[in-house]
């Protein structure tokens, strides 16, 4: 059974992508309730993601607000992948103008395959920079609707 705490933890917004929750991103590995104690296991997205500590305190605050005592642990295994992002998370990213990731590469990175524009859905797009405003995003340009847009890198 999914506990209310589980739902509250998964509903915490990502600090750098406020359109999606950490549940949408697949960062919540487990939530265990023992009496009034809530043990939350999260997995970081990028190893150097600067939002990790913010997420920890946001999750702690959500658990405390529900009257439980939080202990938040970051686990590295199994490793996070953009394949962990839920379908709902992908839909929210697209609605926010960020192209969701394709399947994660298990070999040489093939970024050249054109990403669909989140505004007009055209594949007539090109990569302008593999590195964007946050570690998880790349920059693209749509040649159909002439809009620049971001994509979530498949990793």
């Amino acid at each position, binding site marked *: 059974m999914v506990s209310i705490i589980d739902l509250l933890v998964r509903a915490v917004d990502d600090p750098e992508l406020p359109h999606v929750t950490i549940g949408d991103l697949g960062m919540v590995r487990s939530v265990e309730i023992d009496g009034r104690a809530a043990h939350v296991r999260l997995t*970081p997205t*990028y*190893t*150097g*993601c*600067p939002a990790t500590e913010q997420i920890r305190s946001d999750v702690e605050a959500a658990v405390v607000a529900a009257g439980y005592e939080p202990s938040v642990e970051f686990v*590295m*295994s*199994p*490793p*996070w*992948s953009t394949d962990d992002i839920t379908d709902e998370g992908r839909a929210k990213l697209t609605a926010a103008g960020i192209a969701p990731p394709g399947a*994660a*590469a298990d070999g*040489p*990175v093939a*970024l050249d395959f054109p990403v669909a524009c989140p505004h007009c859905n055209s594949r007539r797009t090109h990569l*302008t*920079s*593999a*590195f*964007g*405003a946050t*570690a998880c995003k790349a*920059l693209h340009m749509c040649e159909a609707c002439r809009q620049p847009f971001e994509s979530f*890198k498949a*990793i």
Partner: protein
Amino acid sequence: MPADLLTHVLRQADRILVLSHRLAEWLTHAPELEEDMALANISLDLLGQARHLYTYAGELEGLGHDEDYFAYFRDAADFRNPLIVEQPNGDFAVTMVRQVLHDHAALLYWESMCSSTDQTLAALAARAVNETRFHLRHSTGWLIRLGDGTDESHRRAQAGLDTMWPFAGELLGADDEDDLRAAGLIGPRFDGGWRAAVGATVVEATLTMPPEPPTRSGGLEGDHSEHLAPMLEVMQDLARAHPGATW
């Protein structure tokens, strides 16, 4: 004396942290805005990898040292990074050559560490290997454009390769870690795979591989060039001026 796992982890963490800082030095100096962001992103990925390794080094050491201790409160002689990452950035071509030499080695390293018998390192490797693929794609793309670009960019790329090449050998691991390899804690040597991969990039960039094998070493034992201490002075200044500060 054979190196223990703590020494191995510190060598990797120091390599990654020092390179992360060198890349951060490019901020606001890169040739274009997108490159500022790219180098900062790569620097941040590396910093994250180093933090995980330092935290694990503290657990292995068992003296209660945290990541900040290893990064900010050790002197140059305590660092075990390969000499190549502490060398000055030079021009953009020199930096990109170093990234190519480093990223090919880093990818082979992390790929081999995915099957380490050490669960902590294997888990970190599984994350880092994907990040490193993006770094390698960026650095090889630049070196090919520079080498196969104008006469001036070709000249600078070749000069960068000639400058960095003597330091490249230490990227291939240490000779005193065979016990760790035998125990499956770290992967087998990847010298051959690295030479083939670097050679392919150099050929595609229309550059000439220096004929001599790399000669400079000592960083893995703490015997550094004159460039590390001034770099650490900048990197460690704030933490040492205000020990334990938080904000």
